[in-house]
């Protein structure tokens, strides 16, 4: 399995700055305060599992519109040894020597524009009438909100809306420097249509088959066929696409 977590160039630049500080011109706080668009950080996320990137350019090699899986994978043979080279095996508690083996398992995930920031719950402008106090008590009935807040009176302490949160934003489909609405263009009869702009999340996944395999090394066996396979893709691409918009406020107590 190979996986990549690539941060955007902005983060890499920040990292590089630490190495070459002597050659850079210092910028004081006053100047920085005038800079716009500096809130948060943007990242791109790439995750590849058992797929080929021959030249190491970070791009998955596509063959006949599909991922090119690693050698020995994707053979579609689920009932004879040896096992394929790409598989994921799960073993549950009290199920000794019984492995749920996912066979011909490979895929790729791309998230190009994910924005991380810090913030306060007030930014969500949620309706206070939706409050459910039962979610904020522990098993003994103690209020967990902390910061002096009483679960029955949210205005106490720092106030509920002043609780901090990690904010994750996805602004939607991105194309050529702008965020736009995705589209679908019907094809002519027999050719199928094409979706465009559904690129907030792009994901392709193949699990060719699955079965229970037995023994201490059942995870490495391929004897008992398959009862189910799963594929995530697009009619015109190895990647299924989705348009995602919104903000997630992640907080805890």
């Amino acid at each position, binding site marked *: *399995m190979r*996986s990549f977590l690539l941060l955007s160039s902005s983060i890499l630049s920040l990292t590089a700055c630490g190495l070459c500080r002597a050659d850079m011109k210092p910028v004081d706080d006053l100047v920085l305060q005038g800079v716009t668009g*500096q*809130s948060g950080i943007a990242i791109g996320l790439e995750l590849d599992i058992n797929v080929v990137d021959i030249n190491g350019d970070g791009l998955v090699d596509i063959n006949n519109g599909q991922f090119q899986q690693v050698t020995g994978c994707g053979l579609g043979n689920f009932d004879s040894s040896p096992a394929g080279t790409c598989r*994921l095996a799960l*073993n*549950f*508690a*009290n*199920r000794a020597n019984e492995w749920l083996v996912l066979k011909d398992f490979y895929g790729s995930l791309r998230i190009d524009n994910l924005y991380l*920031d*810090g913030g*306060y*719950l007030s930014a*969500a402008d*949620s*309706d*206070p009438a*939706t*409050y*459910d106090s039962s979610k904020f008590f522990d*098993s003994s009935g103690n209020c967990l*909100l*902390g910061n*002096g807040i009483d679960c029955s009176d949210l205005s106490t*302490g*720092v106030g509920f809306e*002043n609780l*901090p949160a990690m904010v994750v934003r996805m602004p939607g489909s991105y194309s050529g420097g702008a965020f736009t609405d995705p589209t*679908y263009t019907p*094809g002519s*009869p027999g*050719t*199928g*249509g094409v*979706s465009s702009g*559904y690129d907030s999340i792009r994901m392709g996944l193949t699990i*060719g*088959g699955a079965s*229970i395999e037995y023994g201490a090394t059942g*995870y490495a066996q391929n004897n008992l*066929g*398959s*009862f*189910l396979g*799963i594929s*995530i893709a697009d*009619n*015109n691409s190895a*990647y*299924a*696409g989705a348009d*995602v*918009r*919104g*903000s997630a*406020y*992640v907080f*805890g*107590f």
Partner: protein
Amino acid sequence: MSSVSNSMGRWCCNLSWRAALNFLAIFTISTNVSAMTSLSDEALSGVSGAGIAVALDDFRFAMAPTSYIELTGSDGGANWQRGDARYYGLSLTGGGSGTDWYGDGCASADPLSCPLGVGTISDFASVYNPFLLRVFQYEGYDYQGTYRNQIAPGSANSMPTVLELIGPSKVPDPWRWSFLGELEVGRNAGSPADVGSNHSEATFLQSQTIIYGKPITADGRPAILRLLKVENTADPTFGLMYQSALSGDFRFSVAHSTDGGPDGLHEVPNFDDNEGVHFKNVDAFLPLGQLHYQAITLDNVAPGDGNFVIELTRLPGNDANIYNDFYSFSSDCTGVYSGVDCGYKRTGRPERYNETHGYVYWGDPSSNNSDANTTDGIYFKAPAGETFQAYARTNNSAPEGNNSINYSMTGNAFNLGDARVEGLLVQHLKITSLGAN
């Protein structure tokens, strides 16, 4: 789950949300830019790590009309054929105006006429009522019949700990779920039919499913997923519990528009805006599993043929405490039956009855629906401007003065009325795959 093995290597990620929050705070503060939001130590000091909350604001998710999740069948056999199911265009969108996957607007103001809302859902999960992932302890009987009610760990009565994901319990605006389904029968794995194959070249059925509602019951109970260790000393395996909650309107349809849109395998059809079976004012609650004596478990088939079993376990045998809890038997009989369990009652049920028993209402039972009603209950509807005949056979005189015993009416929509299922109790459910080996 106790272990994971991957043939190409092992990897593990353990990202503490608190660490992430602190990292973010440090990163943000260190840049010392006034426009950025810094999180003070004082604000973070109240965090104890007991739970993670995720609120979603102005949220919208729409998978491309040509993108799909496919469940692939195994080769057919005697008396059955291979089946492959694709789910295209899975989406979670807002109310108001919308379009279909083909790109057309929708003729009707009814949200069920459109699978895709244009807008977002403003309070998808409010910060006051977020998705909540937490560990929690609940009182209850375990599989052996022991009542577990002690907070402190280590004793025979200690409450088991469960990991649970709880959905929002108050949702101001309805969500719109939808997907385009395609079932292909008899696919030739070695030579599958081409995109655009017609019905003589491939056997397939396309449909659309739309739900416009809320992930809660009408009385505000949320959906809950629990992960736990099964409290059965004979099988302490990985277990799941799911409390399903849903209210709103539902439509399932298959008719295409008459505008000449495609009708081929793997092509996006232009569905009619009105046709289909509708369920209005649905309210459904279904608990699968009970703390701490019934859970959903995963297993193999006993002969070891490679197939997979998902099972909602049976109740333990002959334990009065568990049976009384599960069935909500009352024990308030009087007279010569004093102290004897009375069984089900129509009134004065124990509170536990509403936690162990589910229900499904299709339509508001407080009103009677006319035969052409399209706002409540269950009805079938033809495309706009088209009609169909509905038949009924009566034993004597038919309604509205029609004395024929074979009674029929012609119209665009016919309402079947409301339906109601109460006291849903799932004692045992077992699903076994058959395709392996």
